[in-house]
């Protein structure tokens, strides 16, 4: 984990309001795990003041240039334009100077390939699942991805996921792509089919809540990636905490989502408290 003062390699709109940005980051890839994130500094001048957290979509390296220079290692993020910071990001170009801190936090935990791996992603929540899917496939696991979104525009990177060898199932609220309805309905069907599955999820809080309930019902392990407002991203400010399971007024338990998370085993979280957090915006890592 390190602060990179670096440059943008490319920044493209991949779906209305969604962008994919490649950033030069030597040696980043070898340290990064699926589910980790970066703190991105949009520009050296204000605004915005604080860095913005983004999940790692993938890392890699561009082939060496004909000029004989070594291959360019990069980290790639996928982001949705929602407010002041992401609006500025959308205007950035190749060569613009930016800074990123990472890789940060604890990512997904995947040691064995036992059982089906079911990945459930909602909208921008698909981002961290891509790197996870890649690593699971590389280990030889069987991976099924349930992609959910409001409309077809919110279903990102289908081709990329399929190219990995992932079985994908698409559902949209308005039925504009895949089956109509909620991704959680698909999850329920899949769990009936694969009762020994393990679930990994990321997406808007209402979706995460339902995923948690379903996994509890079906008694399958769940890992969930959360999204909290962050100032430092390194465990110093304590701004990003979530309530842990068993949190009480008298015996409070707050977990730093930038340091202990952003990925948590579902059973360690206080879901009653999380569910209340209706301000939570869509997308996470």
């Amino acid at each position, binding site marked *: 984990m*390190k602060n990179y003062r670096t440059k943008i390699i490319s920044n493209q709109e991949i779906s209305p309001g969604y962008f994919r940005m490649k950033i030069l980051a030597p040696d980043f890839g070898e340290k990064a795990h699926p589910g980790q994130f970066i703190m991105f500094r949009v520009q050296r001048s204000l605004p915005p003041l604080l860095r913005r957290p983004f999940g790692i979509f993938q890392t890699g390296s561009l082939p060496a240039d004909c000029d004989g220079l070594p291959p360019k290692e990069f980290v790639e993020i996928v982001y949705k334009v929602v407010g002041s910071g992401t609006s500025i990001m959308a205007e950035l170009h190749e060569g613009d100077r930016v800074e990123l*801190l990472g890789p940060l936090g604890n990512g997904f935990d995947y040691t064995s390939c036992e059982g089906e791996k079911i990945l459930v992603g909602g909208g921008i929540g698909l981002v961290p699942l891509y790197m996870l899917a890649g690593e699971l496939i590389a280990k030889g696991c069987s991976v099924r991805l349930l992609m959910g979104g409001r409309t077809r525009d919110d279903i990102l990177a289908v081709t990329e996921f399929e190219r990995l060898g992932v079985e994908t199932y698409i559902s949209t609220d308005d039925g504009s792509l895949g089956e109509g309805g909620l991704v959680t309905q698909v999850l329920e069907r899949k769990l009936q089919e694969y009762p020994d599955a393990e679930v990994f999820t990321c997406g808007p809080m209402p979706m995460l809540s339902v995923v948690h309930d379903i996994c509890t019902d079906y008694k399958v392990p769940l890992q969930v990636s959360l999204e909290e407002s962050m100032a430092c991203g390194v465990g110093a400010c*304590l701004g990003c905490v979530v309530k842990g399971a068993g949190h009480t007024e008298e015996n409070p338990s*707050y977990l730093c989502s930038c340091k202990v998370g952003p990925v948590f085993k579902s059973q360690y979280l206080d879901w009653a408290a999380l569910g209340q957090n209706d301000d939570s915006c869509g997308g996470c890592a």
Partner: protein
Amino acid sequence: MNELDKKVVKRPNMSVEIAGIKLRNPVMPASGTFGYGEEYAPFLDLEEIGAIVTKGLSLKPKAGNPTPRIAETTSGMLNAIGLQNVGIDAFIEHKMPFLRTVNTPVIANFFGNTLEEYGEVAKRLNDIPEIAAAELNISCPNVKQGGIVFGTDPKAASEVVRLVRKNLQKPLIVKLTPNVTDITVVARAVEEAGADAIACINTLTGMSVDIHTRKPRIANRTGGLSGPAIRPVAVRMVHQVVQTVSVPVIGIGGIMRAMDALEFLIVGASAVQVGTANFVDPAVMLTIIDGIEEFCLDEGIDDVRQLIGSLKL
């Protein structure tokens, strides 16, 4: 000044003294923005900064406030962490071992919910030889006295400083809140009560509302405003306090760059603390230290202390 010229010039003295502790330079983190030091160790050499200031410590662990706890505002941020901290025991057990390995003075920021608690933490700090000084945060509500903030009432401030002074066998820095009509009254009161140095300012109380949900953007409703937005208020208050007391003053508030730190030194701060800027750039303190040194070289100043209080009126 070009590169060549610079090499022949002697590097200026950068070390300053605050309340009897010698710092290698006048730049240190502000409490609560630098964890317990360890969190930022991957990003900067902790032996290059003037001191390490810990998150505010209390007698018992404190869980802090519900979330959301932070929100960005124009050139500032609101926070209502609620003084979450591991408590003095866990601090000694889990955080001191790392801090002991770093050759930089450690300043322990602390607070209490009652007068007695303040006194107790002060006593416990005596047991940690590697703590160079204590920084008393009096911007906390007095639970027993109906929640009035110690630091907004000169009498309450004086009382808590007096008690801590009695219990503490280390240099005592008292950190003031800016949410007062006249900061010089509080500054004078804490100096008389035994403060060896004064740090100011803590955050200004602010609020922000999400117009769509119509809810406050942080769960605690109000929070502390920090960052460059508050710098002019901080510079003004440091200026006022410096003119009022004779103990050294540490300037805090919105320092992002060397030139901001210099403003505080020029109005009379003997050292500065950098808070919110650490979040923006984890190595910002090193840039600030370099910038101050550069400024001294450019202006032909061979000791940073010549800058302190050099304001021309």
